[in-house]
């Protein structure tokens, strides 16, 4: 999965490739509600990213980061 999430919380994984490790119940997409779009739910995926994928040469082996992302933030990769 590639992340397209643009919320400040998820910006550090935007455009990065990860692997879904858990699927959580659908929840209100706060970004939409905050911009007046009402109550819209989306499934949430816990996506695992390697440190190398996120930080390149500045990253490290043996470290992974997991970020919970709305389905609309993801695209196939």
């Amino acid at each position, binding site marked *: 999965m590639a992340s397209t999430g643009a919320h*400040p*919380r998820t910006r*550090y994984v935007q455009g990065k490739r990860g692997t879904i490790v*858990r699927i*959580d*119940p659908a*929840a209100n997409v*706060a970004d939409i509600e905050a911009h007046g779009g009402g109550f819209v739910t989306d499934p*949430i995926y*816990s996506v*695992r990213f390697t440190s190398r994928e*996120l*930080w390149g040469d*500045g990253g*490290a*082996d*043996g*470290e*992974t*980061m*997991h*970020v*919970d992302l709305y389905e609309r933030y993801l695209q196939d990769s």
Partner: protein
Amino acid sequence: MTADHHPAELAPIEARVAAIESVLVEKGILDTDAVDEIVRHFEDNLGPMNGAKVVARAWTDPQYKDRLLTDGTDAIKDLGFEGPEGNHMVVVENTPTVHNLVVCTLCSCYPWTVLGLPPKWYKAPAYRSRAVREPRKLLAELGTVLGDDVEIRVWDSSAETRYLVLPMRPDGTADMSEEQLAGLVTRDSMIGVARL
């Protein structure tokens, strides 16, 4: 309070909160007993002692541990811990080769029902950024030195999901009761910044 000619001056935020509270009480919007009850709840009912009970139960009851790792919310509710900031709980298990660390890079998401309110450092930009940027170095600086053979998994909390680390049971505790074991479990071990 006893008569004191020089009472400690209120911080601006304390004065503001007191002023707002008194106006709300005057207007009948707020009941002082309700405020006292909320403060008491945070002081007496919420805190790492709750999480410690969950961990000790998991250490002593394999079936409970399985449930805790597959449906954390429900298993934690079994012990009476549920409520706001703990509505969807995920528990991650430390092993000899995997160490878990919890952070909220955005701000301060934290599992209130089992750990209470977050410590100040948890909300500090340095912790929030370094936990995802260089967790192994950060942990070493905090006194938790992990070998290269230990994978570090960092979990970025959100409004929807809160994480609790299930630490490894320390050696030499085979004879301990569940209650004694709970006494060994620290807040930091359940955030993942420390090992037991």
